[in-house]
């Protein structure tokens, strides 16, 4: 049996395809992106440092850090922030640490980390959909580590 595609069917398919394509583009671009950055401390000790207010890291995030070598992680500070489409946002994580996030069109971002005002690293085209984490980290004294855990909330 020979199938005939009449022009009306083709036209309908073409228009539908364009609508779907346009819809997917606009839906992906619409709305601000909400992020959460967590400054954390990694250690093999079971307790956080004395005199410092910190709590164990969220178990869900902790699972995602399993490829790192430290046994325990403590949350020092948590910051939620919003980045409008195509914009850049710089957020203080501590007196000496800042993180800058630029929206490149969901889910891609550009991330820069600053220590004492100097750019430590800049990573372009980071795909960060919801559920993923992006973690710049470095060694700290006494076999410990500092981490900045960045994730998309919306």
């Amino acid at each position, binding site marked *: 049996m020979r199938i005939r595609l009449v022009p009306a069917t083709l036209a309908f398919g073409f228009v539908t395809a364009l609508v779907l394509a346009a819809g997917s583009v606009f839906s992906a*671009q619409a709305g601000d992106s909400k992020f959460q950055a967590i400054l954390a401390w990694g250690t093999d000790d079971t307790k*956080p440092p004395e005199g410092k207010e910190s709590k164990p890291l969220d178990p869900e995030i902790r699972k*995602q850090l399993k490829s790192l070598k430290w046994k325990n992680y403590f949350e*020092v500070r948590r910051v939620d922030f919003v980045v409008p489409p195509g914009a850049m946002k710089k957020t203080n*994580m501590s007196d000496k640490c800042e993180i800058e996030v630029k929206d490149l069109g969901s889910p891609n971002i550009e991330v820069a980390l600053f220590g004492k005002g100097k750019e430590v*690293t800049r*990573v372009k*085209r980071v795909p960060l959909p919801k559920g993923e*984490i992006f973690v710049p980290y*470095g060694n700290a004294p006494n076999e410990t580590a500092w981490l900045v855990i960045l994730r998309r909330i919306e």
Partner: protein
Amino acid sequence: MDYEAQLKLQAYLDGELPEKEAQEVANWLARDQEAAGLLTELRQTHKALGGFEEGIRLPESREFFWSKLEREIERLEPAAPRRTAPVRLLAQLRRLLVPMAGLALLVIAGLMVFPAGQSPEPMEATFADSGGMIHRDDMAKATFVSLAYPADDESADDEMGQPD
């Protein structure tokens, strides 16, 4: 009785035979009871069917009827191309729409493979100090950027704000 003889009887019954042949058949019927029986049977059948056949009588001769039909066909023929004109337009439109529909499907496929804004290009990192590297844990859905900051040989003060 052979087939030819049967046909001749039928023609005799229908009055289609020339006079001489009709006379011969009449003589044959007088001698042959089988032929006479068949003729009777044919005549009865003809009578039985006669009531159902309504002869179509043309108001004009057969030749005139067909020539009239032919003239009518010739008269209508020039109009035929006009009726196919929209079909040609649709065919041209189809030639345009087929590649466009294909292109639209490719765009959709591309958007599904590379969702809007997601560049297929890999991540690109720059580091202030040497020793930085990126590693990925797909199972954990995590990307790590290992930094040499603060360097191990630097004073162990509170470089990034971690507790001391």
